[in-house]
């Protein structure tokens, strides 16, 4: 089932996923409940995995689901629940700020302005999208040094997180 990679993406699939992503991100901002916000964040991350599928990056979509939907959102919910003393503490003020909104709109407008005129190079699409086998091969040949550094980073982060969250970081004042 070798199919030629199209040079564009189905607009309907993109539109639905983009609406889920932007809508979910806005809901993270406007919802007043921290627990609801983390579930909206989970929705955004899963919709992003769908976007990776549309972009024929199957491996990344799977990693996104496992790392973000599986690990990060559970971690977020754990910390939300550990740092709330009462159930009512989950509901917060909205923390709206006109100055920051203006800054974010200005920055986003600048990004859009720069990227809109981005000259996309015309490249020949391959006959078939490279699969997981090609990704694995490249990861352990061309990208092997960053790969090993990444495992070092993860190890250091693991030890640091255990130390901070455990005995070392929480000395009472």
């Amino acid at each position, binding site marked *: 089932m070798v199919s030629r990679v199209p*040079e*564009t*993406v*189905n*607009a*309907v699939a*993109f539109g639905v996923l*983009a609406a889920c992503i*932007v809508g979910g*991100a*806005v809901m*993270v901002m406007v919802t007043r409940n*921290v627990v609801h*916000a*983390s579930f909206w964040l989970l929705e955004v991350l899963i919709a*992003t995995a769908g976007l990776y599928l549309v*972009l024929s*990056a199957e*491996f*990344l979509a799977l*990693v996104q689901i496992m*790392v*973000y939907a599986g*690990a990060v959102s559970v*971690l*977020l919910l*754990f*910390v939300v629940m*550990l*740092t709330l003393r009462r159930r009512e503490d989950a509901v*917060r003020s909205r*923390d*709206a*700020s006109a100055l*920051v909104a203006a800054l974010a709109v200005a*920055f*986003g407008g600048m*990004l*859009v302005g720069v990227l809109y005129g*981005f000259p*996309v190079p015309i*490249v020949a699409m*391959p006959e078939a*999208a*490279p699969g997981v086998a*090609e*990704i694995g091969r490249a*990861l352990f040949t061309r990208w092997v040094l960053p790969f090993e550094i*990444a495992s070092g*980073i*993860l190890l*250091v*982060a693991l030890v640091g*997180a255990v*130390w901070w969250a455990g005995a070392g*970081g*929480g*000395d*009472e*004042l």
Partner: protein
Amino acid sequence: MTVGLEAFLMLGAVLFAVGLYGALSKKSAVMVLMSLELMANAVNITLVSTSRFVTPVTMDGQFFAIFSLVVSAAEIGLGLALVLALYRRTRTIELDRIDELRG
């Protein structure tokens, strides 16, 4: 109906701006970390879509995205551990109530 790379870049820019708003305006440390995740996600979308349309054979952007995913997973783990340590020290995660260094 089809869309090209520009639509993905626009989506990344909008998502990044939303995350930036949250990272600067939210007063709960956990909400700030969530906003940082949104911004990292916007960058990853940009990387993967550029990879798909500009380097479809070598997939450079996808590898960048994999490593950026590793770094942001480490960041969220360390960040949440810091939030927990902060909570045990000060009994709060409200960023505007953590002002011990204010002169």
